[in-house]
């Protein structure tokens, strides 16, 4: 199939393009940008007049809930959500049931995703067997099966020796280690950011120290092992300050933030809204402001959806009993654009930066060739209408997870088409 996307406004941050250009696609690859290759005969044409054409989004964390939690979500529903959100590549954490600690499970997941022919799925393998923090997994086997890195998801390792060994082992083979900095003890029973709001509501707190102490440990182990570490879901101003300094020092680290955290604070818990129950907790306004600054100055490399579908049974509960997590795949682009809108007045530079954080910059974290639209690259493309404002409602979401603190919000930017490897996988 030969596809011609015409009259769209192309934003391709990796290649410095921000202008109206046509794209020509053949055999799943981009074969022309701006000018058609000789003898190009389109079999299908998409008129993108008024639309913005960007690389398909690269999401550094989306829980698909398979295997094991199919009652919360399935690959079908969540990969459809990815399509509706313009996400063409996604990384999924290993905290499934069973945990992704065996090559067979990873192969099965990759196979299932491939059959569905929607987003490209890149699993993270478990860093330790069963995420128990005791024994290393077969990282080489898991990598052969398709893992792009190794992670503990939300389970911190109790024994620092094991963490050091895991990082040394990963470094030996050049594998990336993805860690969410959280102390295993501090704030273990916590459900909200330690501070005046949690104190007033009587919710047990997770102090910022839980993040910074873990970061100090991780950074020291990076210095010792030289391992390539990606820090997941940064939440605090103090934590970002440590990352900024560590990057300046030249440590091989990158980091991301969940899209919700660019906008929400602990005040959004309101009257115990369990949709605002997330891990790590939404922090204070100064933390949120620090996240925004860290995105601007490059301390934070990428914005991810931190997509975590939770069903009604586990969410319609008192705040402390509700499962943490929010749906995010279908909000990722809009929340990134909201940042550009609020922190950069929606200027072309700000929009370009926001697009980069969910495409090329995110791809760079994983080492994927995705997230850009150069001739010769796989044709993963997202078309959106920046003028459309849409209301976040349960019925508007394809994901089985209908819970997000943004329910009822009006967001900017609606995905109109998603193209995966040259075929139109979603059209609104």
């Amino acid at each position, binding site marked *: 199939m030969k596809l011609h996307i015409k009259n769209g406004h192309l934003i391709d941050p990796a290649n410095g393009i921000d202008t109206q250009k046509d794209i020509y696609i053949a055999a799943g690859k981009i074969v022309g940008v701006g000018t058609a290759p000789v003898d190009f005969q389109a079999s299908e044409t998409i008129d993108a007049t008024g639309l913005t054409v960007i690389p398909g989004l690269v999401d550094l964390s989306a829980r698909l809930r398979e295997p094991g939690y199919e009652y919360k979500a399935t690959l079908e529903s969540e990969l459809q959500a990815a399509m509706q959100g313009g996400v063409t590549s996604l990384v999924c954490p290993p905290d499934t049931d069973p945990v992704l600690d065996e090559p067979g499970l990873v192969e099965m997941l990759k196979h299932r995703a491939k059959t569905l022919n929607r987003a490209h799925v890149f699993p993270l393998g478990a860093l330790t067997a069963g995420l128990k923090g005791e024994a290393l997994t077969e990282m080489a086997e898991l990598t052969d099966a398709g893992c792009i890195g190794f992670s503990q998801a939300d389970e911190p390792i109790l024994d620092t020796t094991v963490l050091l060994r895991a990082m040394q082992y990963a470094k030996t083979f050049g594998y990336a280690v993805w860690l969410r900095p959280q102390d295993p003890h501090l704030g273990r029973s916590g459900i909200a950011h330690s501070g*005046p*709001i949690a*104190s007033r509501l*009587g919710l047990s*707190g997770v102090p910022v120290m839980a993040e910074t102490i873990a970061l100090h440990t991780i950074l020291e182990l990076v210095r010792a092992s030289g391992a390539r570490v990606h820090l997941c879901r940064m939440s605090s101003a103090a934590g970002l300050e440590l990352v900024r300094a560590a990057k300046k020092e030249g440590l091989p680290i990158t980091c991301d933030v969940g899209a919700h955290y660019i906008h929400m604070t602990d005040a959004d818990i309101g*009257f*115990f809204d369990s949709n605002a129950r997330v891990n790590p907790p939404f922090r204070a306004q100064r933390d949120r402001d620090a996240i925004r600054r860290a995105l601007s100055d490059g301390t934070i490399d990428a914005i991810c959806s931190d997509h975590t579908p939770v069903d009604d049974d586990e969410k*319609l*509960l008192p705040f402390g009993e509700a499962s943490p997590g929010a749906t995010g795949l279908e909000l990722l682009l809009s929340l990134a654009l909201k940042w550009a809108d609020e922190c950069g007045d929606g200027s072309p530079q700000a929009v370009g930066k926001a697009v980069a954080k969910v495409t090329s910059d995110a791809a760079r974290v994983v080492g994927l060739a995705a997230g850009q639209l150069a001739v010769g690259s796989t044709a993963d493309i997202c078309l959106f209408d920046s003028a459309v404002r849409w209301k976040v409602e349960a019925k508007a979401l394809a994901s089985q997870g209908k819970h997000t603190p943004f329910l009822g919000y009006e967001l900017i930017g609606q995905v109109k088409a998603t193209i995966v490897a040259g075929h139109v996988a979603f059209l609104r």
Partner: protein
Amino acid sequence: MLNPQLNKNGELQHLLTIEGLPKAIVTHILDTASSFVGISDREVKKVPLMRGKSVFNLFFENSTRTRTTFEIASKRLSADVINLNISASSASKGESLLDTIDNLSAMHADMFVVRHSQSGAPYLIAKHLIDTRQPHVHVVNAGDGRHAHPTQGLLDMYTIRHYKKDFTNLTVAIVGDILHSRVARSDIHALTTLGVPEVRVIGPQTLLPSGLAQMGVRVFTDINEGLKGVDAIIMLRLQNERMSGALLPSAQEFFKSYGLTTERLALAKPDAIVMHPGPMNRGVEIESAVADGAQAVILPQVTFGIAVRMAVMSILAGN
């Protein structure tokens, strides 16, 4: 953000917390309670204000004292009262909180008195009643996690007003385990709402939540400093499981550092009153001589508690 406990006319729809309640409503509850205090002394201790109404006491957490006072208050208002000890029934069978509420609503409940170990649980119920369009059903928070115990806060205010008349020249100290105490939080909100110029909290750092000063209180870790010149002392119960461990080394040491003794009471104003929400741990947070002394108003608190709960329920039933 819409305050879920007030209806669109600004009247009390549910009593979930004292925080954010208009002073006029708090005062109205206290005034109404005054009119009920006499009823308990009558030969026929009943008024027909809630005749034909069904009050469900939903206790997801064990309590004898609070449940009993709500039960008595309901009966003195002539309501039918049904006690459900949920910790021992549906919840253990896996029924969700909202399923329980739907079932009881189908039995035409008019009021739910809810105690739950999770902060905010009564809000979930109140919101569910709004979502399922049942504006005639009211919720009274009888204690949720560490968050609030508004009727205790109100009865404490009633007690203080009874003995001190005016709130606007008082210094009140709350002593002990502030971190885990819903009573402390409700008292702080009630005292600041009623215009008490100085509210103090006293405890070791391990039992003081972060950001406490932003609730409008002065924080003391030295009880001898904190009690100087106060008009009322509210002692808090220290739960058994918190007496030894990472929060406190032992009950004895807590008593040594924070127990209310006769000597420490002498630091307060001579006419200072001593309150306690009960049940008391004698020799842990309070010395027996103080608990039984002339300045203690712990038993009157219990008596006033019934009148205050009658006031809350009758006002809700009328809105």
